[in-house]
């Protein structure tokens, strides 16, 4: 790297430079053109896309965990409901259930009519 380039690069990069060397570099039209071109290059290589807000990234990062937590809570609720339901159910029995309605059978008495 030439001393001209060195001084110009150091100036652009906020690195220590020799002021005398920089003065010599800027007295040379080629040195000035280099400085302007490199400053322009820095501008055009900047990405035009704006970064998404950082909160959105955090939210996106948390989303899988939130989904897993919600799914786990649902599972626990379902399992708890099932367990509570089974505990409250009567134990199975071999006895016949009590009647809910009693029908009285009356013997048949013919009352006549055509045979």
């Amino acid at each position: 790297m030439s001393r001209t380039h060195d001084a110009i690069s150091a100036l652009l990069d906020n690195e220590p430079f020799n002021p005398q060397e920089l003065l010599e570099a800027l007295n040379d039209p080629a040195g000035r053109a280099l400085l302007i071109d490199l400053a322009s290059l820095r501008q055009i290589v900047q990405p035009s896309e704006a970064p998404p807000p950082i909160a959105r990234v955090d939210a996106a990062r948390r989303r899988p965990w939130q989904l897993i937590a919600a799914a786990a809570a649902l599972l626990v609720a379902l399992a708890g409901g099932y367990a509570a339901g089974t505990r409250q159910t009567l134990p199975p029995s071999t006895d016949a259930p009590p009647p809910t309605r009693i029908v009285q059978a009356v013997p048949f008495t013919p009352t006549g009519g055509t045979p």
Partner: protein
Amino acid sequence: MASPEALFAANYHRLFKYFCRAAGSAETARDLTQEVFLRVSRTRVPSAPEGEVRAWLFRIARNLALDHHRQHRRRPEPSLLTGEPSRAASQDVNLAVNEALASLPTLDRDVFLMREVAGLGYQEIAGACELSPDAVRSRVHRARLQLRQQLAAPIATFQTLAARRAEDMHETREP
């Protein structure tokens, strides 16, 4: 020692900008930036001066960018072109920049992007890329000269437009 959240928040924009150019698309940059955070949150942030921690963070970022290139085995992808003329012009510059960056040797490109886009100092880049600061200086300069040559037309256009804008501003200020 900085928490992973604080470290990420302090370097979020730098990382995103670096990935935009290193991967060539904002969508991939978003994913890779988040991946850096996931990796950092799974590990212990070294207790070291800020510059060294940043170098450590960008070493992770660079490895991710390299993995991305290996997996996709392609050059940085250009963004989609749009029909709007001014937008299309800026997309042309974007495409030219991505192509010029892709033509650089990988290490020179990363060193250049860390300096010009992410704004890291030579010492931080040296830590991230395992080089000496002098090697960083030399690679940054070499990349600049190559890009200056390859992007001569967009640079000239940028300078013309910047001069025109400056003249317009000067005219509007005068009574």
